[in-house]
């Protein structure tokens, strides 16, 4: 079966029901038979709004906006005991389209489920690929994690409820209008001016503020966090790559299971001067690889290609990701390293600089013998 539509129809048959919108409204505690604003009330309400606006205009500066912002921020936190939040990693990597040169910034996403009484689940994904997935019981959580996540969950709500929180500014961050709310020493939260949901956290450590973007934030009821360890990913294994003997490039297909890729017999006039086998450790045993070095013996622009038919951690971690292969026609760039998928192989490129790493990625082709 190769027809996509047929496959998708098989997995989830068409649903013919019409649903129950009234039940949705009831469960959301909305009674639309009782309108919020009746037309005849509008004039009175408009007058009331104008009167309040007039009072606020002459109110001493400080609490007019702040109180409203804090109330709305509080309403946006939810009432659950469990913090469920997704935030972006600080260090971006760049995906480069090798044909157009278009650059897309990618950041890892960290999803946390924090139940102060039951434990913590932390998952990191990079472009949909799980990097880490760990579950810690209540007694296993590091103190700093408990402190930070408590502060962002119940602590944030407590600060808003108790009046300890304070609106300290308003600005636009990456195109998003925010209010900055001071929660405690060295810890501020920015809430969106549109939704009042937390959008950034600013933690000031030793005078150096670090800004983290929050992708989503909610608090949910106790017991809802997926804290079972099923499906979690083991920590990083040994990623030490072992070099083996020199091999003839013409024989490398038997090592890799397919033709190796190369960037030609020379790069900028510097020859391909070493081809060696590699061995990448994995949880299932070592997997073979190949190293091609250009200009390494002639003082040239030392470029090394490391390739394997498997996205071994020792290979992909050269650009700081785990088990990730960029889409065909793109390169994931981190400094002077690049990672590409080519001819069914995963190839890590080490070059003197980013421009050359990208240039080499464009040159890659199967070695035809």
């Amino acid at each position, binding site marked *: 079966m190769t027809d996509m539509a047929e*496959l998708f129809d098989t997995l*989830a048959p068409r*649903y013919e029901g*019409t649903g129950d919108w009234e039940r*949705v409204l009831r469960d959301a505690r*909305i009674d*639309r038979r*009782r309108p919020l604003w009746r037309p005849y009330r509008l004039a009175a309400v408009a007058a009331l709004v104008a009167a309040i606006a007039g009072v606020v205009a002459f109110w001493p500066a400080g609490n007019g906006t702040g109180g409203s912002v804090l109330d709305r921020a509080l309403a946006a936190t939810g009432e659950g005991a469990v913090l469920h939040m*997704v935030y972006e990693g600080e260090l971006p990597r760049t995906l480069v389209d090798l044909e157009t040169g278009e650059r*897309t910034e990618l950041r890892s996403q960290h999803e946390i489920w924090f139940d102060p009484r039951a434990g913590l689940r932390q998952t990191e994904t990079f472009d949909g690929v799980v990097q880490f997935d760990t579950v810690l019981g209540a007694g296993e959580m590091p103190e700093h994690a408990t402190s930070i996540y408590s502060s962002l969950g119940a602590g944030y709500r407590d600060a808003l409820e108790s009046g300890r929180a304070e609106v300290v500014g308003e600005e636009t961050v990456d195109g998003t209008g925010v209010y900055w709310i001071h929660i405690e020493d060295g810890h501020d939260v920015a809430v969106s001016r549109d939704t009042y949901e937390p959008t950034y956290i600013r933690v000031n450590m030793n005078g150096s503020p670090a800004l983290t973007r929050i992708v989503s934030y909610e608090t949910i009821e106790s017991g809802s966090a997926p804290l079972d360890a099923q499906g979690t990913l083991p920590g990083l294994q040994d990623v030490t790559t072992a070099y083996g003997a020199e091999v003839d490039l013409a024989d490398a297909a038997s090592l890799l299971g397919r033709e190796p890729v190369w960037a030609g017999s020379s790069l900028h006039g510097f020859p391909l001067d070493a081809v060696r086998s590699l061995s990448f450790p994995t949880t299932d045993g070592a997997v073979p690889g190949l190293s091609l070095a250009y200009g390494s013996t002639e003082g040239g622009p030392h470029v090394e290609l490391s390739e394997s038919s498997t996205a071994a951690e020792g290979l992909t971690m050269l650009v700081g990701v785990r088990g990730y292969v960029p889409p065909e026609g793109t390169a994931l760039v981190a400094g002077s390293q690049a990672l590409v998928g080519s001819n069914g192989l995963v190839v890590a490129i080490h070059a003197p600089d980013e421009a050359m790493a990208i240039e080499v990625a464009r040159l890659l082709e199967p070695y035809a013998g």
Partner: protein
Amino acid sequence: MWRRSQTDPELAAIEAVYREQLGSFVRLATAITGDEQAAYDAVHDAFVRAVRYRGRLRDREAAPGWVCRIVLNEARKRSTVERRHAASPLETAEEPATNGHRETGAAAAALASLPERQRLALFLRYYADLDYAGIAEALGISRGTVSATLHAAHANLQTKLKEVNA
């Protein structure tokens, strides 16, 4: 009868999404949870949540993608809980009896083996019939990433399906 949605444009936008896309969203949630009743419950709860928090809807044009994002979250929550008790069809689809079933099962397994974002992007495209902007809103990613993700998902799935049929 006076309708509250007449004076509550966000509510009206969410109701329109409910009336137009309930079936699509139930299919989407079924693909994730593996159970139509659980899927319907997830969609119902998602709409309840959307109505309660409609003040967060920034752009009424984006309502389908915004509600779909909530549906995804609700379905994934249920999927996580259900997985403790029974595997979903995507996970049990590997060893069926007849040849046609074997192909379906293997194709489903191939789909299940895709990275989650790729799988969800395909579900959103096929079941929810969202455009790139809607998928971007639902997955919280850029439109450019949607394009790359769908491209990679199709390529990966075709490769895996070819392996199945080989």
